[in-house]
């Protein structure tokens, strides 16, 4: 168990274990993963706030489960980018007590035969809890990506809000992409919604960019960067920026 009892920014290399954020704290955490299988549980005590940047190094395959429990009036924001080569199976499970607020943003590129799965589970267990997730996926070169988003508002969690948005672009006929949003609602006075968009890359965009001198590969990278821009513009983290620069030649 790692117990955070002072405000601040921390970088942590992790394999597995539990983290606890004490009450009334504001913590920014950069989690760097360098082992294949990782399970982490994070407890956010009352009135605490946590921003997590998940930084994935070159690990093949990558299996990761993160359970986050938000006590009353706590806040969680997570940013996860999986631009690695290799298969991955990522599970984010969030359990929210009353007046808590959870936001999760992800960007995943599945390339060169990768098989990747992102499974999110947001449980609004008590009243006035708000959850939001936004997932971006790119599938190319015979790869596959499955985004499965579960939102469940439990009985008694009135005035809660559960929303998920997912976008996925598929670059070629041999690649497969799927988005499966699921919402289970057991309370009347709530808001819940989802949106999903899945489509092939627009060849006319590639032609347009090429007609200005960009190679086909540069054109595709430019479209990827543009597609991820709403997500990347939110991220301000040195470790993730290094990964972006290396993988996408993306500079802030």
């Amino acid at each position, binding site marked *: 168990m790692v117990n955070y009892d002072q405000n601040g920014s921390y970088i942590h290399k992790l394999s597995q274990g539990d983290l606890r954020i004490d009450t009334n704290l504001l913590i920014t955490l950069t989690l760097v993963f360098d082992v294949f299988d990782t399970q982490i549980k994070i407890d956010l005590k009352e009135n605490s706030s946590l921003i997590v940047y998940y930084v994935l190094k070159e690990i093949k395959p990558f299996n990761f489960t993160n359970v986050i429990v938000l006590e009353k009036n706590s806040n969680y924001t997570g940013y996860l980018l999986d631009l690695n080569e290799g298969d991955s199976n990522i599970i984010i499970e969030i359990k929210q007590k009353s007046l808590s607020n959870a936001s999760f943003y992800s960007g995943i590129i599945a390339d060169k035969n990768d098989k990747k799965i992102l499974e999110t589970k947001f449980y609004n267990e008590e009243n006035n809890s708000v959850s939001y997730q936004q997932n971006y996926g790119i599938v190319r070169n015979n790869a596959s990506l499955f985004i499965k988003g579960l939102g469940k508002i439990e009985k008694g969690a009135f005035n809660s809000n559960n929303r998920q948005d997912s976008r996925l672009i598929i670059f070629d006929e041999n690649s497969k992409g799927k988005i499966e949003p699921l919402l289970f609602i057991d309370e009347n006075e709530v808001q819940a919604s989802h949106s999903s968009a899945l489509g092939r890359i627009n060849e006319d965009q590639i032609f*347009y960019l*090429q007609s*200005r*001198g960009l190679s086909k590969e*540069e054109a595709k990278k*430019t*479209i990827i*960067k543009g597609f991820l821009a709403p997500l990347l513009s939110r991220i301000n983290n040195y470790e993730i920026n290094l990964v972006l620069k290396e993988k996408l030649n993306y500079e802030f």
Partner: protein
Amino acid sequence: MAKLSIKDLHVLVGNKKILNGINLEINDGEVHALLAPNGHGKSTLLAVLMGNPNYIVEKGEVLFNGVDLLKLSVDERAKAGLFLAMQYPMTIPGVSVSDFLKSAINAKSEKPISLYKFIKTLEEACQDVNLPLDMVHRPVNEGFSGGEKKRNEILQMLVLKPSLALLDEIDSGLDVDAIKIVASAVNKLRENPLFSAILVSHYARLFQLITPTHVHIIINGEIIANGDFSLIEKIDKNGYDWIKAEYGVDINKKVLPVSLENCGVKR
């Protein structure tokens, strides 16, 4: 040797033949106007020259400065000096005009452009097409009006300085003042004696502002008449009906899909 030499070019879209043996030569400093009724192959010719993969070249030869253009990829054609200002420019969400142009400039040069030079270049080009400089921070063509899209095409042309510009109906959707601005930007590039262009438009007004050195009429995918500005004046005055009498060519009207009935309309 001509800068651009097109010989007996035949082009298909799907199974439909669009170009039926185009022959055309363009030299440095020349501006060629292409006129045709809708659907006769003007835009197709420009798209094929740029390498749009939706078009299939059935036969023919295109040499650009002696190089077989048809063997080059789209970006290789751009790097060789071609530029296509599109009738319907694409939107690229999330990619700013500035980032896009920087990538395009760097793709064409051996050394990356310095930030100072890049900003100066953008400032000048924005002034030339009368667009505010902060527009370059917006995603490419996203939320642009029709006129802004066209001016953005010309802005890109000014920055990339092609040796052969293919301008596809750059005047459509522009108001009178904007046409003057766009024409003035094209004429600025014409100050370079090596610059040439193929200019497609339906309207004499644009050709009055950008005076072509040569004028061609395309009918049914073939160039059936070559001439000077007087050809444009004749079309502007009489339309295309005189073509049959003078050249013995039937104009195949564009076949549009027939709408049998409206559905889903609330009355």
